[in-house]
C-alpha cells in the first residue's frame, strides 16, 4: 500500500510499504477513504517529538471501510463505514472504565518510554512516535486498528466523509477543550489559537452555553473563520492581548481560557525569541507563551483549559498567579471515544457542520507538499484532507458536491 512516511525533520515521503495485517484478536483493518493532517502532526514534522524513527507512518485522523476483523471483534463487520478515534483504548482497564480513554493502561506497548519522560504513560496513539506505542498511522491506504471493538464508530451513509472525519480528533478535542471550562450561562471564554482545534473550541463553547467567545491569533484568514463562528477576535500582532481582554471584560478577565496552541506557540517578537532560543538550547522543550498569557489574563477563580499539545518541559511558568488567584488548570489528550456518539448526533441534528474548517483537499500522494503548505500557512491553508483515491476521482472539486451542507 501507499503510506506517508517520516524520514526526519521536515522530511516526508509517500512510499510503497507492506499492507497491515491482523496482529491481535481485537484488530480490524480499515481501508482508508479520508485522512487529515493535524496541527499536532506538525510537531512531528518539525522534529519536536522524541522517539520518532525513520519510516514511521504518520496520521491519526482517518476513516474508511472495514475490510477485515479479528476474531474478537463482534460489533463490526466487513463493509462497515467507520471513523477511528486517535487514542487507542482497550475498554477494560481502570481508566477506560472511567471513560478516560486517552489514558488507557494497556494500549501502549512502549509505555516504559513515556514513563521515563512523563512519570506515567498514556494510551497508544496512531502515528505519533514510539513513545505512544509505535503504531503505524492513518495517512495511508490501509490501517490496522487495535481494539476495534471499542474505538471506531459506525457512521450513517447520508453523512459525507468530510462531515464525520473530524470526529477522529479535532472536533472532540476542541469540544473537550471547551467542556473543561465548565461553562456557565453568561460566561466569556477566551481561546488562544484559531487553528482547526481552536475553531472547534469556539463553536463548542457556544454549543455549551458561552455568551461571548474571544479568539486570539495573528493569521487573518483564521481570525476571519473565528468571526464566522461567532467569536470576537484579537490579533496579537496588532493589539496587546492582556489589555484588549481587560478592556473587553471591564478589567475582570475572561471566565475561562483555552490554550488551543500548545508547544510551538508564536507570540510577540521578544518573548517568542526568548522561548525559541531556550528551546533551541534544550533548556526547555516547549514554548509556552500562549499558556503563560492565558494564565495571566484569566479572571480570579477561573479555569485554564489546556488542550493544545505539550510534550516536555517549560520555563517561567507563572505558578504564583495560578495559586494566588485560585485558578484551576484542566488538561489532557482528548478522550475521543467519550465524545464520538454525542457529537455525531450533533452533526446529524445539524447543530454543527464540521466541513467549514476544510480549506484544501489533496491526494495522499501529495502529503509532503500538503505538510509544507499547512506549516507555512500557504494559500490560506487551515485544514487539509487527504484522499488515497484522489486520482480516481479526477480533481478534488468533484468530491465537494458529495456532502450536504447543513445550515
Amino acid at each position: 500500500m501507499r503510506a506517508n512516511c517520516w524520514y526526519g525533520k521536515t522530511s516526508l515521503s509517500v512510499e510503497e510499504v507492506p499492507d497491515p495485517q491482523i496482529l491481535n484478536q481485537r484488530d480490524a483493518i480499515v481501508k482508508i477513504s479520508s485522512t487529515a493532517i493535524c496541527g499536532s502532526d506538525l510537531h512531528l514534522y518539525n522534529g519536536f517529538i522524541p522517539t520518532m524513527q525513520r519510516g514511521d507512518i504518520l496520521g491519526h485522523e482517518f476513516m474508511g471501510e472495514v475490510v477485515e476483523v479479528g476474531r474478537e471483534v463482534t460489533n463490526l463487520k466487513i463493509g462497515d463505514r467507520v471513523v477511528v478515534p486517535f487514542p487507542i483504548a482497550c475498554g477494560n482497564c481502570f481508566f477506560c472504565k472511567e471513560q478516560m480513554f486517552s489514558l488507557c493502561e494497556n494500549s501502549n506497548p512502549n509505555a516504559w518510554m513515556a514513563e521515563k519522560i512523563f512519570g506515567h504513560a498514556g494510551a497508544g496513539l496512531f502515528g505519533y512516535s514510539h513513545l505512544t506505542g509505535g503504531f503505524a498511522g492513518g495517512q495511508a491506504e490501509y490501517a490496522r486498528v487495535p481494539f476495534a471493538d471499542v474505538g471506531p464508530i459506525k457512521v450513517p451513509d447520508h453523512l459525507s466523509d468530510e462531515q464525520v472525519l473530524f470526529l477522529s480528533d479535532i472536533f472532540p478535542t476542541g469540544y473537550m477543550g471547551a467542556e473543561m471550562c465548565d461553562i456557565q450561562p453568561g460566561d466569556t471564554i477566551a481561546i488562544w489559537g484559531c487553528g482547526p482545534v481552536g475553531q472547534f473550541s469556539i463553536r463548542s463553547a457556544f454549543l455549551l452555553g458561552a455568551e461571548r467567545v474571544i479568539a486570539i491569533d495573528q493569521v487573518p484568514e483564521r481570525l476571519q473563520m473565528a468571526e464566522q463562528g461567532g467569536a470576537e477576535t484579537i490579533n496579537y500582532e496588532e493589539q496587546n492581548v492582556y489589555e484588549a481582554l481587560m478592556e473587553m471584560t471591564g478589567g475582570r478577565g475572561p471566565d475561562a481560557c483555552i490554550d488551543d496552541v500548545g508547544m510551538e506557540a508564536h507570540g510577540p517578537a521578544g518573548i517568542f525569541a526568548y522561548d525559541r532560543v531556550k528551546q533551541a538550547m534544550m533548556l526547555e522543550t516547549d514554548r509556552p507563551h500562549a499558556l503563560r498569557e492565558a494564565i495571566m489574563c484569566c479572571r480570579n477563580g477561573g479555569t485554564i483549559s489546556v488542550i493544545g499539545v505539550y510534550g516536555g518541559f517549560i520555563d517561567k511558568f507563572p505558578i504564583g498567579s495560578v495559586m494566588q488567584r485560585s485558578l484551576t488548570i484542566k488538561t489532557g489528550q482528548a478522550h475521543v471515544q467519550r465524545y464520538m456518539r454525542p457529537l455525531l448526533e450533533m452533526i446529524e441534528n445539524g447543530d454543527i457542520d464540521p466541513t467549514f474548517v476544510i480549506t484544501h483537499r489533496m491526494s495522499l500522494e501529495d502529503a509532503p507538499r500538503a505538510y509544507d503548505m499547512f506549516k507555512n500557512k500557504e494559500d490560506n491553508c487551515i485544514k487539509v484532507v487527504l484522499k488515497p483515491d484522489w486520482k480516481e476521482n479526477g480533481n478534488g472539486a468533484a468530491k465537494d458536491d458529495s456532502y450536504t451542507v447543513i445550515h
Partner: protein
Amino acid sequence: MPVNEQRRMLGGRARPGLSNNSAKRLANGLGWFSVGLGLAELLAPETIASISGVSKRRTGLIRLYGLRELAAGIAIFSQKNPREAMWSRVAGDALDLASLGAAATSPDAKVGRVAFATANVLAVTALDVICAMQLTNGTNRGIHAQGTCIVNSTPEEVYQFWRNFENLPRFMRHVDSVEELGDGRSHWKVKGPAGMEVEWDAKIVADVPNEVITWRTLENSDVDHAGAVRFERATGGRGTIVKVNIEYMPVGGVIGATVAKLFGEEPEQQLDDDLRRFKQVLEVGEVVVSDATLLGTGYMEQRPGQPAGADELESAEILPSETATNYRSEGGTVQR
C-alpha cells in the same frame, strides 16, 4: 569468564539488596522471633488464640505450631547459613496463613482479630521471603529485581492465573514453556541468546491462595532461581496489586553466562515489561503489539511504525501470546 568477574558484573547491575551479613542478622532476628512465638504458642495457647481471634478449641493445633516455630528458631541458630531453616519458616508462614484463613470461617472466630493476625503474619512472611532469598543467593551477587503492577481483577482471579505456572510463558518474555509436574513442581524452559536453551526444575515453597506464591529451583539445578509474588486487594475494589520479587543467582559455565546475558542488562526493566504483559493478558486477553514492537519493546528492538512484510513477520519473534499462534494458524494472509 572467571566466576569472580561474572559476579562483579552481575553485582554491579543488581539492585542493592540486603548484604549477606545483614541477611544473616535478619535471620537471627527472625530466629529469636520464632523461639519467642513458639514458646508463647506452646505455653499460653489460649492467649494466642484470643489475640488472633481464633476459637479457643484450637489450642492443640496452636501448641503444635509452637513446636514448629521452636524447631525453626533452633535450626536458624544451629546452621552457618540458615537458608534451609529460613525457607522452612516461609513454608510455616504459609501454613499459618492457611490456618488463619480457615479459622476466619469458624462461627466463633473474631473476624477483626483474625484479619489483624493475618496482616502481621503476611508482614513476617515478606521478611522471611526476602531473607531466605538473600541467604539462598549466598554472595548477594545475584540478579535481583522487584516489580509491581495493578490489575483490574480480583485477587482470586489473579492468583489463579499465576498459580497455573503453564500461563507464565504467556507474559514472561524469556520463558519458553513451563510444564506442571504435579506436587508443586514444574519444569521450566528458558530461551537464551543464539538459540541457547536453559532448563530447570522448580518447586513451590509457599502457596497461600489469593495471597502469596513463592517458588525456587530444586537443589542441584543448573540455575539457582527463586521468585515470590504477592497479591493485595487494592482499595475501593480497584483490582489487585501484584508485587513480584525475582532472584537469579550466578552459576558458572555456559549456562551461567547465558542467564547472565538474559537478565543481566536491566532486570528491573524486563520484569516491568513482563508485568505489563501480564496485565494485558488478564485485562484484554492477550499481549498487545504495535508495528514498532513486533520484535520487542526495547530501544534496540524497535522497528519502524509501519507494517511488517510477510517474510519479516514470519521470522519475527512475536511475543509469546495467543497472538503468535493465531497469526501463524491463519497463515498471515489478509483477505480483502
